[in-house]
């Protein structure tokens, strides 16, 4: 339910104050400043509260059920969330599917899915990567065979975050045709309850099972679930990759890692040493300069100057910075390193090994750092292609 007041009518300060106090009243304080995204039931509870009180979907147009805030106001919205240390929820529905439906979806698709996204009735996951199509996404092989007014899907997706917690997947399948491998790909929405779908969680180095393999065996979905034209899925899907990159630019995870670095230095009695100070000085400047760039890029975006390359550079820099901080933390731990647990008896109140492992994929998923550099060399630096 949308609240009846129009958030757009308020002035900036009034908007900020009201949003700030709403956050403080509604966001569970024990969940502040988290290291990971909010997922599962916790995410839904938080998003439904926003929806209930008319704070959900700041950027979505009013006619689509959102607040329709202009970009500067959206920045205020996000600033207040960051200030309070609110976890970013895993919300593929709003962040990925809604923009795509607005741009490429049919009237019927928008009317059916958008309200369900806003109310968190549907939980979405992504079906892009495949065992042999990772960094080289366009190499995907999962097939979609058209039979009458249905698409019959066979194949396998992998690295799908929390497929186990979702009921809907947006995915890319190869329907054939075209000569370049980017052609003949179709973007389709698939209910995970469809017969023939099997989900297997993948245990990771961090000891978790958030990532999944999803197997498709003669899975039949109506052609009405195709978004955009058959065979034009690469255009649709690539637009989403653009959206996704935005989320990596913010240095909040890094600030958390900095805290762990400091805590570890304190636990090891090294917080006053030159070694720690010099290391921390470097990282703090890295983080703050990165934040300055992020802020400037966001403000430039307000003025319509979106620089995709700047975001890619931030993502790359932040990902590797995060790893450097975590690696230094492990190094500071010295002989207390390599313990797969907290160790309060040694003063270590964080599980350093978990942090080390959970930060491995930041330079892998969404295009490895190597692939990111290839792209930036050509797009941002205009160097000839390899």
């Amino acid at each position: 339910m949308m609240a009846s007041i129009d958030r757009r009518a308020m002035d900036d300060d009034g908007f900020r104050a009201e949003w700030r106090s709403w956050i403080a009243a509604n966001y569970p304080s024990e969940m502040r400043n988290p290291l990971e995204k909010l997922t599962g039931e916790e995410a839904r509870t938080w998003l439904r509260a926003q929806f209930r009180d008319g704070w959900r979907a700041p950027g979505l147009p009013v006619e689509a059920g959102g607040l329709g805030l202009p970009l500067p106001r959206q920045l205020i919205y996000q600033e207040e969330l960051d200030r309070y240390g609110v976890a970013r929820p895993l919300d593929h529905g709003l962040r990925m599917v809604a923009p795509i439906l607005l741009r490429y979806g049919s009237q019927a698709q928008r009317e059916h899915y958008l309200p369900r996204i806003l109310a968190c009735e549907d939980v979405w996951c992504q079906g892009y990567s495949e065992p042999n199509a990772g960094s080289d996404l366009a190499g995907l092989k999962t097939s979609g065979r058209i039979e009458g007014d249905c698409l019959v899907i066979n194949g396998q997706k992998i690295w799908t975050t929390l497929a186990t917690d979702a009921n809907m997947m947006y995915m890319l399948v190869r329907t054939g045709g075209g000569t370049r491998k980017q052609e003949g790909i179709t973007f389709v929405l698939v209910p995970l309850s469809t017969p023939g779908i099997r989900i297997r969680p993948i245990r990771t180095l961090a000891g978790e099972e958030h990532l999944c393999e999803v197997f498709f065996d003669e899975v039949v979905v109506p052609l009405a679930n195709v978004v955009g034209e058959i065979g034009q899925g690469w255009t649709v899907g690539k637009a989403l990759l653009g959206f996704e990159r935005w989320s990596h630019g913010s240095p909040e995870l890094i600030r958390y890692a900095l805290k762990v670095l400091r805590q570890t230095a304190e636990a090891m009695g090294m917080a006053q040493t030159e070694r720690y100070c010099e290391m921390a000085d470097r990282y703090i400047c890295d983080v703050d300069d990165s934040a300055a760039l992020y802020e400037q890029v966001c403000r430039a975006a307000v003025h319509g100057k979106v620089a995709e390359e700047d975001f890619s550079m931030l993502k790359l820099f932040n990902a590797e910075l995060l790893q450097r901080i975590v690696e230094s933390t492990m190094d500071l731990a010295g002989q207390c390193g390599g313990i797969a647990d907290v160790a309060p008896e040694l003063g270590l109140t964080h599980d350093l090994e978990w942090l080390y492992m959970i930060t491995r994929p930041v330079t892998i998923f969404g295009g490895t750092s190597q692939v990111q550099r290839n792209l930036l060399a050509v797009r941002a630096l205009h160097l000839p292609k390899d």
Partner: protein
Amino acid sequence: MTERDEIEVLLENSAEDFLSSEFRDERLRNVYLGRNAYDRGFWRSIAQQGWLALRLPETLGGSGLQVRHVGILANAFGRRAVPEPLVACSLIPAVLAAHLGNGRWQEITGALVDGGRVIAVAWQEAPQRLDAEPLLTVAARAGGGYVLNGSKYGVVAGGWADALLVSARLDGEAALFLLPAGSAGLEITERLGSDGGTVALVKLEQACVPAQALLAHGSVVTEALELARDEAMLATALQLCGMAAAGFELTLEYMRTRVQFGRHIGSFQSLQHLAVDIGIQQALTRAACRAAMDRCEAAPGTIDARRAIAAAKARASDTGISAGRFGVQAHGAIGFAAEASIGLYLKGALRLAAYLGGGSQHRRQYRQLADLAQENA
């Protein structure tokens, strides 16, 4: 990031026009011959552009512009690896004059307006110290004038200048004196900087000056020196920024055209990746400089502004050197030859990174200022 004002755009264009026509690259070859590359004629011609008096208030004959305008110019000077001491011998004296100036400053303001004379500023009390308060250099009253004793470090263009502004302790307070070059008791040990400029150790041994040599006295001197130093750091960061950018562009262009093994070397992944890292550092440097400029203008002299400046100077120093170093490497053998311009950018960056403190010093400063802010809070 504030949008650029008209004057900024104008300055940038005219600096580009002027430097591309007036500044002769060959002059920089002096750097490789172990010669001072400063040029009095060039100095006068930039004075004619009004650039030396940019930061001087209109009441003192200057243009009364902001630090961001000097930043535009410093960036342009960096892009051409100009060795002339714009920051040390124009910005710093201008800021001092703006805060302390009155009739007796005419010699200095005049020099800034017409470029006929060069004023260097001797204020650092130790080789690695950036505190503006004079402590070790001492002035004592003697007869109708003063006698000065002490040492001043890192004096850019100290031997090239016609006169030195010297800070000293007088009656327990900071004071600023003007000493003509060649004054008795003034000993200058000058070294060539890798940028083609010079930097000197200035020793004062029983240097006697008349009463009118004292230009200012009291805590206001330290305050003015601090503001001048802060702006100088920021302008130097921008100069490094321009230097890194131009050197990097030169390198990218070389990578796009140079062929080895039948391919453009810029298509080799390993060079591409090294280049991307330099590109990222440049983006961070620009961001840090912009943030510092905003804060320096909004609240000059505050801890907040000084922190932002420290961050900018730290990042710009490291980026300037990295970009130059990468440039030389990516150029291959020709990058080691004096005839290629890229080496000038590495050499220039080494000196400017050192000037007023480099990466480690400013990162430490960044933390110490935060601690200070916390104590004050």
